[in-house]
């Protein structure tokens, strides 16, 4: 088997090849590690590699396969976003604050995927503390988009999306607080799933906004996302917000039938603000589903335009509370020679956090401060309910809601760095899904001038199956998800 076939294979096909002993996990793992070494200089997608550990796990997986002891991800290499705590392996969250942080425990997602036999290759670059939509806020430098090295990969899970698109691993993890899986999946031409809030445990995921954060997979196909989602999901005694709801076998539940599926197109997502090229690609994908038997229905989400304002109160407010723990005392960065405790706090935090993180802490602190709590935080939580009720009403008449994943294709570095508000608009189609706690998926829908566009499918709470099925059908009838960046131009 050629390395290229290995490096572009889906999890489901690689799983079969491993079972058939056509390839060993060690060979596959070695091919991925070599690919990372060849491309990472150009892409900067991986912060930490775990080569020795990965090869050990791969050999263990090969032994298990030989014995017939095979779990859902046995022998499959994967990269974790560097927001998941990994016992004994540095976990930076893309920040100087945690540059040297080595956790003493694993995130539940890491434990579960290892338990299913996955082989961890290393940790992916990301926007600092997952705050960003371009990966430009990482302390470790921006990630480059493998489709065009002058463009951003999206964010915050941009390292994961770029690594996947460049063939460094067949499966990666991300987290999505306002679009951080779906937007980079869209910009890098891969499939990314943000599960329902509560589906996946948040234990060991470095907290950003606790009522919005959710982890999910990115892969080459919806089928692979179904396999990974089952592996990641489930109630966890260590996360009291993880949902006590049975986890179906999403892969076993996958089917092609979209006959009679009602797909809602919110008027507010397809208005005159939508880029005409993006509209054309998204509508082409929806037409493919329509031809397969689905019905497209016009719907309304009348409070959609409040999502940005609501999100940029709630997320920073929760972040300012979560990030209060970084005090230079217990773990993380500490400034040099503090003169007193106050100086220690102030300088450790302002030297350890980057500009965007500090801005969000400031906004959040303001929104929670005496005299402003009702006007900002309480108000935003009220509007959050109004936005959520829009979705509840819409789902009375449709099974899935569709729209673009991002307002455009990947943009050039620096294009939106001067104005925080321009950057926030990148997530205009994804934020509301987090506010309402719904599952959302981005699947490739073609290219504009050689750069990928994503279709977003939004599901009812805990109904990831329906959006996975719709994406699976789309990927069976079309080949947009098969498009790959020119890999040879990425390697030096």
């Amino acid at each position: 088997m050629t390395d290229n076939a290995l490096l572009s294979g889906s999890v489901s096909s690689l799983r079969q090849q491993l079972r058939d002993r056509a390839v060993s996990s060690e060979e596959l793992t070695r091919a991925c590690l070599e690919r990372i070494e060849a491309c990472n200089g150009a892409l900067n997608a991986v912060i930490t590699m775990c080569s020795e550990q990965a090869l050990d796990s791969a050999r263990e997986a090969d032994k298990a396969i030989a014995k017939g002891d095979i779990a859902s991800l046995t022998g499959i290499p994967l990269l974790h976003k560097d927001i998941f705590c990994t016992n004994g392996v540095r976990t930076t969250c893309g920040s100087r604050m945690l540059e040297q942080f080595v956790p003493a425990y694993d995130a539940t997602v890491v434990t579960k995927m290892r338990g299913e036999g996955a082989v961890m290759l290393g940790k992916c670059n990301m926007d600092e503390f997952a705050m960003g939509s371009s990966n430009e806020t990482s302390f470790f430098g921006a990630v480059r988009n493998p489709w065009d090295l002058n463009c951003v990969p999206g964010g915050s899970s941009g390292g994961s999306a770029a690594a996947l698109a460049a063939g460094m691993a067949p499966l990666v993890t991300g987290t999505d607080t306002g679009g951080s899986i779906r937007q980079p999946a869209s910009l890098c031409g891969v499939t990314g799933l943000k599960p329902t809030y509560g589906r996946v445990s948040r234990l060991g995921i470095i907290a950003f906004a606790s009522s919005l954060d959710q982890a999910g997979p990115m892969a080459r196909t919806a089928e692979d996302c179904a396999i990974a989602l089952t592996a990641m999901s489930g109630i966890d005694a260590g996360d009291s917000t993880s949902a006590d709801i049975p986890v179906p076998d999403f892969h076993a539940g996958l089917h092609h039938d979209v006959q009679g599926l009602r797909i809602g197109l919110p008027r507010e997502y397809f208005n005159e603000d939508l880029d005409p090229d993006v509209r054309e690609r998204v509508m082409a994908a929806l037409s493919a589903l329509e031809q397969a038997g689905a019905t497209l229905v016009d719907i309304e989400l009348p409070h959609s335009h409040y999502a940005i304002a609501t999100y940029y109160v709630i997320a920073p407010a929760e972040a300012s509370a979560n990030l209060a723990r970084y005090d230079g005392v217990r773990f993380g960065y500490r400034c040099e020679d503090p003169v007193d405790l106050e100086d220690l706090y102030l300088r450790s935090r302002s030297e350890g956090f980057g500009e965007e993180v500090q801005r969000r802490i400031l906004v959040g602190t303001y929104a929670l401060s005496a005299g402003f709590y009702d006007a900002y935080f309480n108000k935003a939580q009220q509007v959050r309910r109004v936005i959520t009720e829009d979705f509840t009403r819409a789902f009375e008449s449709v099974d899935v809601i569709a729209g673009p994943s991002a307002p455009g294709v990947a943009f050039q570095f620096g294009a939106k760095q001067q104005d925080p508000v321009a950057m926030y608009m990148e997530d205009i189609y994804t934020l509301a899904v987090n506010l309402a706690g719904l599952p959302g998926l981005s699947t490739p829908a073609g290219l504009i001038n050689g750069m990928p566009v994503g279709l977003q499918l939004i599901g009812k709470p805990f109904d990831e199956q329906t959006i996975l099925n719709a994406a699976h059908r789309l990927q069976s009838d079309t080949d947009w998800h098969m498009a790959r960046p020119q890999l040879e131009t990425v390697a030096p």
Partner: protein
Amino acid sequence: MSVSPQDVEKVALLARLAISESDLPEVTERFGRVLGLVDELNTIDTETVVPMSNPHDMHQRLRPDIVTGQNDRENLMASAPAQEQGYFLVPKVID
């Protein structure tokens, strides 16, 4: 709502962030732009709406108050930037 550099300095102190004199105008300007964005919330009537803190309106689960993990002090203290005799070390607080 517009904010002054003094407002920003006050919030920065609450958040324990140091902003240099030279950065203050730009920080204030960008902070103001974000507040301008969120001020849109004032255009919607939510008089009778109950605030939502969890998207599924789920309540915190409580677990029985029993010991579940072992004391992992040494391992956890290993991440401290400075320590002495098993305690976090900070600059002198009391004279």
